[in-house]
């Protein structure tokens, strides 16, 4: 590796990690939005993954692949539990229930001995790196593209556009809703595990309501016409605070302003391109 690249990667290491981790979070948001549902529990799923993985590494000394699997399985289970009663209904029930999940978990993390209370957990070894983080992101993107271009992708877009009409074509609505939420929770949990294993320190406040809204804004800013939209949103929203650093105290004002302008004038997001839904050329 050339020396300048090595230096660059070293100086901006945590920023580049954030790009990959946020990319996974944005995709976890995308799966849910892509079928027309709204979840505000992505941060909670991420927190579950982060704490599960950190505890397994610190207290049990489990091998990293097992840790990652568990960090996906535990949020998936939470998604099943919270999804089963709410996803039979359409509308905002999922959003409300997931906000509730986030608060309950945050309070549980703050008050539990096991999770280190408000101080969180520290001394987590740095086991994740560029390869596994960006490899996972690339795999997830490829998987989303392949699924989009199939009957599953068509059913998902149909649900987002008109759930009643999708149901009248034989799309099993509850099954699609619960599957999307479970996949979403697994991706967020994986992102949480990476987060814990690159930053060496996690605390309950990293996974609160603010984080949930930030994750939602990745997808809204980038657009959900294709899985690439949310990733574009991540690049902008992760780099913007760095680029705006010279503005000092006005940084967050400009950050917010740019998001508002983008949402107002580009309702389809920064990347309005829509992915095709056919699985072959004929």
């Amino acid at each position, binding site marked *: 590796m050339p020396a300048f690249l090595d230096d660059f990667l070293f100086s901006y290491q945590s920023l580049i990690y954030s790009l990959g981790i946020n990319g996974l979070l944005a995709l976890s948001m995308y799966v849910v939005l892509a079928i027309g549902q709204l979840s505000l529990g992505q941060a909670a799923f991420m927190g579950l993954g982060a704490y599960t993985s950190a505890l397994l590494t610190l207290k049990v000394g489990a091998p990293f692949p097992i840790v990652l699997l568990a960090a996906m399985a535990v949020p998936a289970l939470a998604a099943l539990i919270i999804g089963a009663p709410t996803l039979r209904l359409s509308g905002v029930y999922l959003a409300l229930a997931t906000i509730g999940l986030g608060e309950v978990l945050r309070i549980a993390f703050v008050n539990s001995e096991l999770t280190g209370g408000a101080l969180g957990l520290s001394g987590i070894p740095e086991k994740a790196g560029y390869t596994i983080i960006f490899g996972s992101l690339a795999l997830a993107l490829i*998987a989303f593209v*392949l*699924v989009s*271009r*199939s*009957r*599953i*992708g*068509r*059913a998902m*877009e*149909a649900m987002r*556009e*008109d759930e*009643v*009409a*999708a*149901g*009248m*074509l*034989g*799309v*099993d*609505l509850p099954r699609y809703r619960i599957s999307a939420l479970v996949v979403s929770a697994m991706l967020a949990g994986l992102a949480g595990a990476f987060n814990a294993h690159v930053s060496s320190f996690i605390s309950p406040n990293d996974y609160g309501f603010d984080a949930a809204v930030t994750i939602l804004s990745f997808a809204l800013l980038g657009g959900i*016409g294709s899985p690439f939209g949310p990733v574009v949103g991540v690049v902008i929203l992760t780099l913007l605070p760095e680029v705006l650093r010279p503005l000092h105290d006005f940084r967050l004002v400009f950050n917010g302003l740019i998001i508002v302008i983008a949402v107002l004038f580009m309702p389809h997001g920064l990347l309005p391109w*829509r992915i*095709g*839904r*056919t*699985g*072959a*050329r*004929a």
Partner: protein
Amino acid sequence: MSGTILALENVTVRFGGLAAVEAVSFHVEPQTVHGLIGPNGAGKTTAFNLISGLGHQSDGHIRFDGERIDDWPSWRRAQRGLGRTFQNIRMFGEMTALENVLAGMHAHVGGGLGAALLRLQSFRAAERAAILKAREILAFVGLADPSARAGNLPYGDQRRLEIARALASDPKLMLLDEPAAGMNPSETSGLIELLLRLKARGVTLLLVEHDMHFIMHLCDRITVLNFGRKIAEGTPLEVRSDPKVIEAYLGTKVAERLEAGARVR
């Protein structure tokens, strides 16, 4: 009645104290066009929603293709061969015309998650076959451009596309809710021509429509509802001369005058 595709038996639905549909029974025979007519508020769309599973009756049974479907959700009914269109078109506007029709094939096109991810030979073959069939259906309903964005199509074409999408699911029974609503006369006659070709193909249709010319021209049998009750049933000729039907549509006085006129003649 063994060949009956759809049978309503004493179906009642109440919204609070109001019975929107009350003790309605009728059945639809395969390969026929059956009309469901009545003045505004007669309960036609409510009946359609009960049949397609978007609402559930308070009382009575619905049989479809020999099975009691009372507790089935809409997608299960659709999977078993019930298709429908809507009074206010429900298009997937962002998708292309072709993708809309492919979405209509959801219950038949193969390809689970694994097959889609691995892009198996069989998956691609199934997709290719589906695309060819979707093109055929689009041509059948008279839509020339498969890659047009559905939301950009003119109104009459959106109606055609909605019919194409329902047709794609290869339904045993297709419900059409006011297909000619909002159409100009030339679009309407084009639609009649399309539905006659559907009928010739052997598709069973149940349709709600206000355009009497349309109904009389197409239907083999007609059921008339008024205030949620069935008031008449028969061939177009029988229904047209039924005094109860005339009364429902035109009021008591006109009905009396018509009857008096008939006697004089």
